[in-house]
């Protein structure tokens, strides 16, 4: 069993390929420092993020999910992020009611030019998850 000080949260980042993914790229090319806890997956639009993906990530034992897309009004597909917003908001609130800590599901709007913001968001999310602790939600008893 790892001790809490050594434990590092594992986060899945679902990033829109038109903005946040490029934003993350910019954070890298401009040598911004941010925690290496986030595993990035590219999605065609934040509207692609099915609530099932969020639950699957938690089911697999990852400690948090970060969904990031274009700012409202900037969606490559016009309305994808608006729809994503309703879906994510409902999923987040509903899971909180069921007992999932607030910080496990996070969403942000990061444009392709906001490398700084991306680094900041990842730092914040990682810090928050360190306080919440490991994800034992779907673990079998005694594990």
């Amino acid at each position: 069993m790892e001790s809490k000080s050594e434990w590092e949260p594992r986060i899945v980042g679902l990033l829109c390929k038109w903005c946040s993914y490029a934003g993350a790229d910019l954070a890298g090319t401009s040598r911004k420092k941010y925690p290496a806890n986030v595993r990035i997956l590219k999605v065609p639009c934040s509207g692609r993020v099915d609530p099932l993906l969020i639950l699957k990530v938690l089911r697999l034992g990852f400690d948090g999910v970060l969904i990031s897309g274009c700012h409202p009004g900037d969606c490559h597909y016009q309305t994808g992020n608006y729809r994503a917003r309703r879906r994510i908001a409902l999923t987040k609130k509903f899971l909180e009611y069921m007992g999932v800590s607030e910080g496990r599901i996070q969403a942000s709007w990061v444009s392709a030019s906001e490398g700084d913001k991306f680094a900041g968001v990842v730092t914040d999310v990682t810090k928050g998850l360190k306080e919440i602790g490991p994800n034992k939600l779907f673990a079998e008893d005694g594990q």
Partner: protein
Amino acid sequence: MEQELRKEASKLLEEGKVDYIVGFAPGSLKFSTTPLITKEKEEVASLVINPFIVNNLAKFLTEVLGRVGIVAKGCDSRSIVSLIQDNQVVRENVVIIGVPCSGLIDIVKVEKLVGKDRNEIDDIALQGEKVAVIVGGEKTELPTKKVLFDNCLGCEFPTPQEYDILIGEPVDTTCNRELGQEKMKELEGMTPERRWEFWKYQFSRCIMCYACRQVCPACFCERCFIEESEPQWVLPVSKWQDNLIFQVIRNIHVAGRCTDCGECERVCPVNIPLRSLTKKMYGLVNEMFHYEAGTDKNAPPLMTAYEYEETKDLIR
């Protein structure tokens, strides 16, 4: 009321306005009813209206082909409106026979309160605030609040919102919105860990019969994600983790369609308190998006609409 309903129904069939009548007929057990789908005029005579017409018949609208005359209580009419919004039902093909409803009696609650089996009970009559139960010639009065289904207690629309023919007089809503929310409020007062433990226990009892999905008028997908094998989202064996995910996703899928009619909880063979979930989802949709399912047939479905300024605080 029953006579009027039978008359209207046979008139509809006679005039050729509908191909089928969907309504309620007496069930095989005492104090129960069963859905009746018929195109025979003779069978229309067995249509009934009583406080035991529990099923939400809107489910059949997506399954019966042709023009349908459907008997609808307040809650059913909202499910029908929600199906119209989703283009699952063409309004012109449906004749809604509205039946104002003053609450449905849960026979299991009555059995428990009088301590008798339903076969030993002679008669049950709903009389406003009291329910008169006659057992072996003796009359017992029970408070109505104790024997109605939980979802009837907080009912805001006892009279159908959308109808072509209304049988009887409209009923005023006398119900308090807070009623029937006790379980949800109790859960909200717990710590997140306790809540998760609660649901973990509940879903460990789930036997994966999926009756909740089968009975739900809002669950009209031809192929459900739980039956998908590539990718396989949930395992085909009963694990509480997968049962929980199934129910969470089902609730999210029906958000904005679910009218909190309580059918899922009623049919659950292991009595999982599913309405504590649907009620919460209904409340969230209302609070966050000011959207009430099944009240406006011209409104766009919840998940296809958006507003520029909403839920800003949830996203960085």
